[in-house]
């Protein structure tokens, strides 16, 4: 505020001084008028200016001041009263406005000052925000990088690719100079340089795993800055002035499949780690930033997961391949086994048929031969032949039986039979042999032993015969005793078979048979071996070379099949031995449900072969030959029905008849009848066997007869023996075709 020296202008002044004052006043006025204009101009320009009122005041003040100075111009000379009044008015106004302004400024200046501070504050804040923005942006960048890296890493399940991709992507993201991965060796004592970014084929540097720097890195899950001079950081051969950039190392956990449990996280202590080393360019003057370190850590973890996935996949692929291989091998083995079994079965089937046929022929014919007139010498020879062939037949049957037993394909037959008569038969068979050896044979059947039982008669007889036969075979003198009784659980305690308790009930009982002999006995140690097939008691083998050693094995199989047990007791050599067996048999009260006893396997001229109550039907239109055939069959014990014509035969024939003998001397009638009989019993399994009797040696062919369904053909004349042989053969093999 300049002091306005508005002093009275009455003093006659210098013209020069007055001139200068005049000019200055003029300029001052000018300035004073221009300033508000400027102010107004600039205020108008800026939209926000809160102090307009103040400005107006200020403007007014300046304008008035200017006006005052302007009016002053006129006061240098003599001026009229008007000028003096205007001057005075102007001055007064100026004084008012300036005071008002001064007062106003007292209020305003603190405000203005505070505006200034706020501005400073805001500027600081803005700067801070900028910084934070920058941080967020970098973090987001990092996140993006990590996601991208993870995506790259996890998009492959190949371990090698995973690691390579990691290095490549990391190198790209962080603009690394070099990046390398050290994997633990198989021994676990060293780290081997496995992958690097820049070098294609890293040479196998190794460093021992227990270096302090490595321990330091492994002990923390953060990325650790390490010295560029430490062994792991020397990633490439460098010469001279090469100064490696800042290096960071981080551990990469390697999850082993074995540590990985589904619901627990694996223990940290059992982990092994790989080491990832990252090097910044040496000439970039860059340093490792926190966000970069974080990126590295995250990547390292992701790599660990990806690697474990790859490992699991590898493992499962390997397991699958192994399984496939095993499957193939198993399949092959199974097919081989099947082939072997099929071959064995075929062999057995063939042998069964082929071996028995000649045996039958030999035995039948030699027995027939026995009945003709022979010299004593010839008779001896024939007897030897017969004996040997019987033995051979037994042997064949034994072997075939045993194979079938082992196979598990043998099934017991269940039929009703007379237990007492079975024992009688056994005794009858053994008695002659025993008497030859001068052994006395005694038997005792318990009184409560049922008469009629259900079981497999043939095999039971075979078992008893075998046991008794053995007793006779191995005894030179003394007596053999056979006892049969019902096994009682109370009296039965044997430590050898602790779980076996023969408890009888209404439907079955346990038969106990004990055969004692006073023969050569057996060493108690050898007893277990007796039941093994083909094992012969060594001490006895020299004395008795007969027998194949299969007998007891077969017996045991049969006894087991009959849900029983068999065992031998002997006090020692020379003290005889006792064979006991228990088998389960069914009880029946229907004694009239009588099936004819089945035929013993060995054919021959046995008087005991009879076809009791075998129901047969004879069809012959010739009365004489009909009654001859009937007589023949009746002599053999059959129950014969006759028919004198085809029609009568068809009427009479039923499932009860086991064989139908058909005289076919009358040509084609026989064929037709056979066909009709087949039709009649089409749905039944056990239709009667049809056998043709013919004297016609001419146009007979086996095929013709088989075609119409005949089961057999016999040429007339038929002798008793021939008929006997025919019947047994027929019933056993279900087919018989005599060759012309």
């Amino acid at each position, binding site marked *: 505020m300049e002091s306005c020296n508005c002093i009275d202008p009455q003093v006659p002044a210098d013209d020069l001084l007055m001139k200068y004052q005049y000019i200055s006043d003029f300029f001052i006025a000018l300035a004073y008028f221009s300033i508000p204009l400027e102010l107004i101009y600039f205020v108008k320009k800026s939209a926000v200016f809160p102090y307009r009122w103040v400005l107006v005041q200020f403007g007014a003040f300046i304008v008035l001041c200017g006006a005052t100075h302007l009016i002053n111009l006129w006061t240098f000379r003599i001026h009229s009263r008007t000028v003096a009044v205007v001057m005075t008015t102007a001055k007064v106004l100026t004084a008012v406005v300036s005071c008002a302004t001064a007062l106003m400024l007292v209020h305003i200046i603190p405000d203005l000052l505070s505006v200034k501070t706020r501005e400073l504050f805001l500027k600081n804040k803005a700067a801070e925000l900028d910084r934070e923005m920058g941080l967020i942006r970098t973090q987001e960048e990092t996140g993006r990088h990590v996601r991208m890296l993870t995506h790259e890493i996890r998009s492959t399940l190949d371990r090698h690719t995973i690691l390579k991709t990691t290095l490549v992507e990391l190198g790209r993201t962080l603009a690394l100079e070099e990046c390398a991965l050290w994997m633990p060796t198989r021994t676990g004592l060293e780290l081997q340089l496995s992958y690097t970014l820049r070098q294609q084929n890293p040479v196998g540097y190794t460093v021992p795993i227990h270096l302090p720097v490595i321990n330091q890195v492994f002990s923390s899950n953060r990325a650790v800055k390490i010295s560029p001079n430490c062994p792991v950081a020397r990633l490439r051969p460098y010469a001279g002035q090469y100064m490696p950039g800042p290096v960071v190392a981080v551990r990469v956990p390697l999850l082993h499949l074995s540590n990985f449990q589904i619901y627990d996280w694996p223990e940290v202590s059992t982990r092994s780690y790989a080491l990832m080393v990252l090097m910044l360019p040496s000439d970039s003057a860059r340093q490792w930033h926190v966000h970069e370190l974080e990126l590295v850590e995250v990547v390292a973890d992701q790599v660990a997961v990806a690697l474990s996935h790859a490992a699991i996949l590898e493992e499962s692929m390997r397991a699958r391949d192994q399984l496939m291989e095993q499957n193939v091998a198993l399949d092959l083995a199974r097919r081989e086994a099947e082939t072997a079994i099929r071959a064995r079965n075929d062999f057995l089937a063939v042998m069964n048929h082929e071996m028995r046929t000649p045996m039958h022929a030999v035995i039948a014919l030699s027995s027939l031969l026995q009945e003709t007139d022979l010299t004593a010498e010839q008779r001896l020879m024939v007897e030897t032949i017969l004996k040997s062939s019987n033995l051979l037949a037994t042997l064949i049957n034994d072997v075939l039986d045993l194979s079938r037993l082992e196979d598990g394909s043998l099934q017991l037959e269940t039929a009703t039979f007379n237990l007492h008569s079975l024992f009688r038969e056994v005794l009858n068979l053994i008695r002659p042999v025993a008497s030859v050896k001068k052994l006395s044979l005694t038997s005792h059947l318990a009184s409560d032993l049922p008469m009629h039982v259900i079981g497999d008669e043939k095999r039971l007889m075979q078992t008893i015969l075998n046991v008794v036969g053995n007793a006779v075979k191995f005894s030179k003198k003394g007596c053999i005793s056979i006892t049969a009784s019902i096994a009682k659980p109370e009296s039965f305690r044997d430590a050898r078979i602790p779980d076996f308790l023969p408890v009888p009930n209404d439907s079955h009982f346990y038969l106990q048979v004990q055969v004692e002999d006073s023969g050569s006995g057996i060493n108690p140690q050898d007893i277990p071996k007796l039941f093994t097939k083909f094992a012969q008691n060594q001490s006895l083998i020299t004395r008795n070379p007969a027998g194949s050693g299969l007998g007891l094995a077969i017996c045991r199989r049969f006894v087991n099949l009959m849900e029983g047990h068999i065992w031998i007791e002997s006090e020692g050599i020379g003290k005889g031995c006792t064979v006991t067996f228990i088998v389960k048999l069914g009880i029946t009260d229907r004694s009239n449900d009588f099936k004819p006893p089945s035929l013993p396997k060995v054919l021959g001229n046995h008087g005991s072969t009879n076809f009791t109550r075998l129901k047969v039907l004879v069809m012959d*239109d*010739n*009365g*004489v*030959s009909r*009654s*001859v*055939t009937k*007589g*023949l069959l*009746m*002599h053999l014990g059959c129950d014969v029905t006759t028919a004198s014509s085809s029609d009568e035969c068809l009427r009479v024939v039923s499932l009860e008849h086991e064989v139908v003998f058909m*005289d076919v*001397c*009358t040509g084609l009638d026989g064929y037709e009848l056979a066909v009709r009989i087949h039709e009649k019993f089409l749905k039944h399994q056990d239709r009667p066997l049809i056998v043709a009797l013919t*004297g016609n040696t001419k146009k007979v062919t086996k095929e013709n007869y088989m075609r119409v369904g005949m089961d057999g053909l016999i040429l*007339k*004349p*038929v*002798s*008793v023996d021939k008929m006997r042989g025919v019947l047994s053969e027929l019933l056993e093999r279900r087919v018989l075709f005599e060759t012309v």
Partner: protein
Amino acid sequence: MDGIVQLQRQLVDYNASLFHEGFLDDQFNQLQQLQDESNPDFVVEVVTLFFEDADRLLNELTKALGQPSIDFKRLDAHVHQLKGSSSSIGAQRVHRVCISFRNSCEEQNVEGCLKNLQQVKHEYSLVKSKLETLFRMEQQVLAAGGSVSR
């Protein structure tokens, strides 16, 4: 005692001669074997049956051959029956003649047939008388208290 033995010996000899002369063959032996306690008169029964059958058949044959137009088929059927019966009991000679009779029938040789018929009748009557004699002798032995061995 002596008488029985003698009778038995005679029987055996006669039996043997029948076989020797070819009247009977092994089939008759078989028949004899079939006779046992359960069937004591088996042989007699069968032979009687044969006689009846043969008589009937021979009548038929004579009748058939006496026809103006001979039905050879029917003739053949009858001969076939006779052949069967005779072979069943072992009348060997009769059987043989039947075979040649059949051949004649096939050839439709009337004269041959007539001749064959004569032969059959002759052989048949022979074997019939022989068998009847045999049975009579057996009865004698049995009546005297002996046994007929087979």
